[in-house]
C-alpha cells in the first residue's frame, strides 16, 4: 500500500486556487521531487501533506505508519534561527518531541535516538557547539538530523539546498541519497533544481497552473513539460 495517496486534490492559498486536480502516490522507498515555478503551490502542498492546511477538495490519505505523524520535516530556515543560541544537541533533540509524550523532559532513550541520527549525518562531533556558529551546510545537516528524529518512514524536505554553495549542495544531496538507499527512507523533496531532480529522483511531481504532471523520473525526462522547462532554464 502507498504511504501517501493523493486523489484529485485542489489547493488554495488566500482563497486563490494554486493547484487543481492533483493526483499522485508515494510508495515506500520512493524519492519524489516536487518541482515547479514560484507560486505553483509547492509550499502549500507541503503544508497539506503535513496536515497544517486542509485541502479545498479531494483527499490525501496516509498509510498507518504515517497517520500518527511519522513525517520528518525539514522546513526552510527562518531568520530567527540564524542567531539562535542553541546547541546542536538541543536542536536535534527537539525532533523527538513526539516521542516524549507526557513526560516533562526527554529520557535517555530519546537522547540516544538523537545521538544515533547525528552519527548518521556525521555531526556528532559538533554536539555541544552552538548552532549559530556552524556553516550553512552543517546547519542544514543539524536540521536534517532533527527531521530524522521525528521520522519513521518519510522525510519531507522543503528546498533544503537553497543558499548552499555547489560543493556543499552536492554533499547534501549525496547524504539524502544515502538515507534513501541505505536507511530506506522515503524522501519527498521540494526543489528548484529540476536537472538534479530528473536525474536522481525516482518520481517527479511537476506543479503547474494548468495541469500538473506526475510520473516516474524516466518518463518525465522524455516528456514535453520537462524539455520545455529545461530549455527555459538553459536560456536563462
Amino acid at each position, binding site marked *: 500500500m502507498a504511504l501517501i495517496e493523493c486523489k484529485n486534490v485542489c489547493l488554495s492559498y488566500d482563497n486563490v486556487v494554486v493547484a487543481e486536480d492533483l493526483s499522485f502516490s508515494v510508495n515506500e522507498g520512493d524519492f519524489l521531487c516536487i518541482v515547479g515555478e514560484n507560486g505553483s503551490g509547492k509550499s502549500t502542498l507541503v503544508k497539506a501533506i503535513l496536515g497544517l492546511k486542509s485541502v479545498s477538495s479531494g483527499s490525501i490519505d496516509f498509510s498507518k505508519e504515517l497517520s500518527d*505523524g511519522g513525517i520528518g520535516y525539514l522546513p526552510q530556515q527562518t531568520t530567527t534561527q540564524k542567531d*539562535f543560541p542553541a546547541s546542536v544537541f*538541543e536542536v536535534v533533540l*527537539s525532533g523527538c*518531541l513526539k516521542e516524549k509524550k507526557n513526560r516533562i*523532559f526527554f529520557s535517555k532513550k530519546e537522547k540516544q535516538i538523537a545521538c544515533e541520527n547525528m552519527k548518521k549525518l556525521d555531526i556528532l562531533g559538533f554536539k555541544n557547539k552552538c548552532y549559530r556558529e556552524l556553516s550553512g551546510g552543517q546547519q542544514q545537516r543539524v536540521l536534517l538530523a532533527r527531521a530524522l528524529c521525528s521520522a519513521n518512514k518519510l522525510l519531507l524536505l522543503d528546498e533544503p539546498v537553497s543558499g548552499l554553495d555547489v560543493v556543499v549542495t552536492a554533499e547534501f544531496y549525496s547524504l539524502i541519497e544515502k538515507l534513501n538507499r541505505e536507511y530506506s527512507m522515503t524522501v519527498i523533496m521540494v526543489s528548484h533544481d529540476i536537472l538534479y531532480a530528473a536525474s536522481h529522483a525516482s518520481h517527479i511531481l511537476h506543479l503547474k497552473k494548468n495541469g500538473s504532471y506526475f510520473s516516474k523520473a524516466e518518463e518525465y525526462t522524455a516528456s514535453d513539460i520537462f524539455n520545455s522547462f529545461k530549455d527555459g532554464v538553459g536560456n536563462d
Partner: protein
Amino acid sequence: MIETLSLVFSQQFLLRALVVGMLISACCALLGVSLVLKRFSMIGDGLSHVGFGAIAIACAANVAPLYFALPIVVVAAFLLLRMNEKGKIKGDSAIALISTGALAVGVLATSLGGGLNIDIYSYMFGSILTMTDSDVVISVILTAVIISFFIVFYEEIFAVTYDESFAKATGTKVGAYNTSIAVLTAVTIVIGMRMMGAMLISGLIIFPTVIAMRVCKSYKKVVVSSVFISVICFFLGLVFSVKYQAPTGAVIVCVNILALGIFSFIGKINSFQIKMMSEKVKKALSVFVLIACVLILVFISSFESLDFSRNSGLSVITTNFASYDFARQICGEKAQVTMLLSPGEESHTFEPTAQDIINISSCDVFVYGGGESDEWVREIISSVDATETTFISMMDVVDSGSEHSEESCDIEDHDHIHEYDEHVWTSPSNAVKIIEAITDAVSEKNRNNKLLFEKNSESYIEKINNLSSKFRQLSQKAKGKSIIVADRFPFKHFADEFSFNFYAAFPGCSAQSEADPVTLAFLIEKVKEEKIPVIFKVDLSSGNVARCIKDETGAEILTLYSCHNVSSDDLENGESYVSLMTKNYENLNMVLS
C-alpha cells in the same frame, strides 16, 4: 555598602520591594527569552504602552487600575499576536500602531480626567518603594505560575521558539504556547508596571536575554543565566537607588545596560580567533573581567551612605511649603522641621525616596495634604512601622468640601473646579485650623515646650486673622469684579472663604499645561469686555497661558501665590505663608480697587 544592605533587609517596605522586584525580574527574564528569540521584543514594549493607556482610562473613570488594565492588555496581546501571524499589517507596524494609539488614548483620558495625577504618574515611572502585602502575594502567585509553566513545557517551548513550522509539523500546539506566553507577558507587564513603570518595564523583559545571548551558547544556559542576570541586576539596581536616592526603575535599567556592556566585552574575548589563547585563558580572562567589574561596583558603592539614625530632638516633616511654614513658626528653634519637596519642585509628581520614607517613619509629626497628590502617604502608613509618628492630614483637619457652598466659585462649567481642591491652606481660616492641629501634635510630643508652642501659634494665628479681615474688606470693595487667573487654579478654598469672583483656565490639581481653546477664548473675551488691566499667573508655573492672554489683550501679568512650594530664592529670603499671602493681597488690591 553593608550598611545599605542591612538597611534593605531591616526595613519592611524595602524588603517587600526586594521580594516583589526579584520575582517580577525572574518572570520578565523567562518570558523575555521567548519574546526576544522569536523577534517579538517590541510586543513587550507595545503592551506596556497599552497598559499605560488602560491605566489612564481607569484613573479617569475612577475604577481600580489593575483590574481594568489586565483584561485590556491581555486582549491587546492576542491582537498583536494575530496581526503578526495573519494580519494585513505586518508585525512591527502593527505594534507601532497599537502602542502610539494606546498612548494617545491614554493622554486623552488623562486630560479628560483632570490631568496627570499621582496614580498615573506612579504607573508611568513605577513606585517600587510602596509595594503592599497584596502586591507580594500577587507576584508570588504569578512567579509560581510562570516558572512551573516554563519547567513543565520546557522542551515544547524550546521547539516552538526555535522553529514554529517544525513544531507544528510534529503536532505541537504552537498557537496555544504562543497565546500562553503572550497572556503571561501581558499579566507580568501590568503587574510589573506598578514597580518599574510603563516606560521601563519592557527593559526588564528584553535586556536579560540579550545580555545572556552575548556569552551563552545553548538555550538552557540562556534561560538560566538570563534569570540570574535579571535578578542580580534588579538587586544591584535597588541597592544603588536606595543608596543614592535615585529612581529605582531607571537605575535598574542602567545596571542592565552596564551588564550588557560587560557581557558583550566578555563575548568578544571568547570569540577571538587567536591561537595563542587557549580555552582556559579565555575563561580566566572572562572571570577576571567579571570580578573587576564587581570590585568597581563595590568601590563605587562604598562612598556615602544613607543616614537613618533617629533624631534626638523633636522632628517634624511636612510635604509642602505651607505646612512647613506653619510648623516652623510654631516650633521655632525647638524642633527640626523639614520639607520633603525641594524648593521649586512640583508637588503633584513627587515620589518619596527610600530616605524620605525612613525619615517619615522615624519622625515625630508628619504633616501632609491628604489629597490625590500625596496618595503615597497612605501606602506608607500601611507599609511602614511608624507607630510613634503622628500623621496629620490637612484635608482631614479642615474636613474640606462639606461646608462650602458652590455659588461663590464662579468658574466655567467645563472646568471641574467645584468638585475638588486639595490646596486647603489657601483659605486663611483653614490655615488656622491646620496650625491648631500641628500645635496640638507637637505639644503632645514635647510637653516641656507646650507653652512656647501655644504662644507662637497664637501670635501667628493673629497675623493670619489680620490678613483675613483685610481680604474681607477687599472682597466687599470688589463687588463681584472678575479676577482672571490664566493658569491652574489652586485657590478654590480661598475664593470660597471671601466670595471672590474668579475665572481660571484649568482646575487646581491638574499638571496640564494647555488650556482648552474654548476656555482660553472665553477668558480673552472676558478681559476685553470688562477691560481688566491685570491677569494672574500662579507661582512656579510656566505662565504660558497668561502670556498668551497678555499678547491678545495687553493686560499685565501678576503672580498669585498658592504656597504649595516656593523657589529656592524665596526660601532663602525668608518668605512665609503670611508674607506670600500679603503679596497676594497687594496684587489683588491693585486689580480690585
